[in-house]
């Protein structure tokens, strides 16, 4: 027997429903907490969603945020936030700051004179400063982007729910829906809690989380449907447990490889996409959790009509390739 790395023993018989009230309660509490945190602390919206300007500066000199702030103070730009950016991928003499300026009254994108005065004010205090990127979004566009973002997440959820409903039964799609709301809610809550910049890229991450989470959920559902045909008289709960146990090894493997890839990106991929990658990493964790502990449970609560013939268990069209392997 060759050596195999096995994170999950060959036969597991975990009762995923044993602590269901605890896990379900925890999920519920976490979701409510996420909502409360988001409402109280608010999201740290990037300029995509609230308009304004961000400038990324880079200097070979050690930078002092206070000096920058002082230099910009006389310009009367309103709310200005300056943060120094640290990243393990930076060179030794690479000092990066991110400056965010609120949208200016009555303007769309920032006026060129204003940008010039900001740049010369900073150059005065730090002659080595370079402006590696500037982005400016007018309030008109940012208002629309918020709606685009909301629509895309809703459209993503709707498309998935409809697909699951068509391929499985309506109970499964309700389970999937609750799991998706759970994952998206917790991710948004985490961003509110840590006040991580929330912009368009994070919406992309949310949609990816939707895709990943449902991927996991569907694999369990798929096995459940198969086992329901096999074990006609076994209680639903037991069939669910069996299905979850049978797919557990796969769940751990896939989450593992995905997390490995994401963590290397999180550490080495630079600060530009860190928020984006962070959202996805977190999403993989909650997505995996929710497919085991949330989606299934909802289906159990709703119950399934076991006398109905389940929908076509395997898409014949796609399995055509394996037919010629028949003995």
């Amino acid at each position, binding site marked *: 027997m060759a050596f195999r790395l096995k994170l999950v023993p060959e036969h597991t018989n975990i009762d995923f429903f044993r602590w269901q009230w605890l896990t379900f309660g925890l999920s519920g509490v976490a979701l409510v907490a996420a909502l409360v945190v988001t409402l109280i602390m608010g999201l740290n919206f990037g300029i995509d969603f609230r308009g304004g300007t961000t400038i990324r500066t880079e200097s070979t000199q050690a930078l002092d945020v206070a000096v920058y702030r002082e230099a910009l103070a006389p310009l009367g730009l309103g709310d200005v936030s300056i943060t120094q950016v640290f990243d393990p991928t930076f060179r030794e003499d690479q000092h990066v700051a991110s400056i965010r300026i609120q949208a200016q009254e009555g303007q769309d994108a920032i006026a060129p004179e204003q940008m010039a005065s900001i740049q010369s004010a900073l150059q005065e205090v730090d002659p080595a400063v370079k402006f590696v990127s500037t982005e400016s979004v007018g309030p008109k566009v940012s208002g629309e982007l918020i709606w685009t973002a909301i629509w895309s997440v809703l459209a993503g959820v709707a498309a998935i729910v409809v697909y699951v409903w068509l391929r499985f039964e309506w109970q499964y799609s309700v389970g999937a829906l609750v799991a998706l709301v759970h994952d998206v809610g917790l991710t948004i809550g985490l961003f509110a809690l840590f006040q991580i910049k929330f912009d368009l890229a994070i919406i992309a991450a949310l949609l990816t989380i939707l895709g990943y989470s449902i991927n996991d959920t569907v694999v369990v559902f798929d096995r459940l449907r198969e086992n329901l045909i096999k074990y006609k008289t076994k209680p639903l709960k037991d069939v669910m447990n069996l299905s979850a146990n049978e797919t557990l090894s796969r769940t751990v493997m896939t989450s593992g490889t995905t997390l490995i890839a994401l963590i290397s990106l999180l550490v080495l991929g630079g600060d530009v996409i860190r928020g984006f990658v962070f959202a996805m990493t977190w999403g993989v964790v909650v997505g995996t959790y929710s497919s085991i502990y949330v989606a299934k449970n909802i289906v159990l609560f709703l119950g399934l009509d076991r006398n109905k013939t389940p929908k076509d268990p395997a898409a014949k069209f796609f399995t055509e*390739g394996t037919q010629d392997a028949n003995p």
Partner: protein
Amino acid sequence: MLQISLWKRVVILLLCLAALVSAAPNLFYNRVEGHNDAVMAFEKTGAMTEAQVAARDAWPDWLPSGLVNLGLDLRGGAHLLAEVHLDEVYKGRMDALWPEARRALAAERATIGSIRRVPSPPDVLRIQIGNPDQIAKAVEVARTLTSPVVGLTGVGQSDYEVTGEGDTITFRLSEAEKTATDDRTMAQSLEIVRRRVDAAGTREPTIMRQGSDRILIEVPGIGSAQELKDLIGTTAKLTFHQVYGPPTANPDANPGPNRMLLPSAEREGISYIMDDVPVVTGDELTDARPDTDQNGYPAVAFRFNPTGARAFGDYTASHIGEPFAIVLDGKVISAPTIQAHIAGGSGIITGNFSVEEATNLALLLRAGALPAGMTFLEERTIGPELGADSIEAGKKAAMVGFGLVVLWMIASYGLFGVFASVALTMNIIMVFGFMSAVGATLTMPGIAGIVLTMGTAVDANVLVYERIREELRSAKSAARAIELGYEKAMSAIIDANVTTFLTGVILFVLGAGPVRGFAVTLIVGIATSVFTAIFVTRLMVVTWYARKRPKTFTV
């Protein structure tokens, strides 16, 4: 028996080979790009510098030269979202309609009485008449000025809706005419922006219409959004106006009805009172080039088209000795006195130009004025250093991620893990191959998408392998276990990937810029990962089985 028919093997291998060939140029990115640029330059200008010849020869012509486009966030460049003020065109239409209406109504002055234009919103023209009881007659006359809308929509509608109420006739642009006008304005604006950006010689700019009144402009390699704005934002709207009275030093002077006050471009504080309807506009120009005036100072020579020439000729013939104003972008660049009848429709504009300014102005006039002003709603500048850093970081993260995933797969599945790793490599090659073939754009989130794909791409293999393990456990023969593994995992593979695919499509449709780049790699990654897992890995497994014929084996 486990078999894959020969033609299937051939197709699978050919597809892999095609992907390899198509992806390969990306390994020599700079060299191939230099080659492509040189070829492009040669096509455009028909000549090449020595450096360009060298660049072209650095990559043989017979090799594929398709590359993955680098997005703005990786290459550096500028992005602008401009909004076109469509209303301005309506106002221009109404201003142009007024003299026409005045002429038509003046012919009936005996019945309808005096006529006067009254203030109105930009897309409406209101004319007051002296005899309110003759309004029906006036409307009838006014209706003769309307004509059917030209265009596919709104057949049967006329361009203006004319109504009479009390003593006022109202011309209003019909909805169909507005739509047609908007489309024309946008098409014209796009064309002019494209010509101005092209004139600056930047590579592969993206210029496209977005929504009803917006233009998205992305230019890689340009220094800043400001530079780009300077390039396209200058409206270069040239008009010639009749001037009333001497110039004034009072910038708030009341110009009177249907007149306007515009400042001088060169003489600080001086303004001119002029007719608010131009005699001729820059739209009627057919040519403009840099020239010198009789004193040898830089100037711009221009030539009108026949309509413009006639209007200009008639005007100069009847106004000899009077001043007129040449207005560029709301400023009077010169206000000469008409010395003689200018027939033939050509002339020169003098001002306080430098040679460079004269050349620039001629170029702008030749390219044509933007039909309407623009506001910039969004602008982004990304420096090339940031892009280079991002590529570096992305590369490193991708390689480390790849290495770790491969290690884990081999540790978990042994030989089958090696198969999966080969398939994963093929998968990444296919993503690059496909993106190069269709010229898709790779962005920083796109790199993240590829790294994410590495993690999830092995999923289909994992599903199959886990299934084979299960089947082996229930003491099936090796061949049967492999067969069932593939067969039974298929449903889960399809369902899982279709849902991810759906979210990818939504991202692509609703997202923009970098996010769209992410959607592209995600979608392509899903398609190729299913292909590699179902076909490439299976081919390897089946080939291995046919050679070894093990009674039993460990996955």
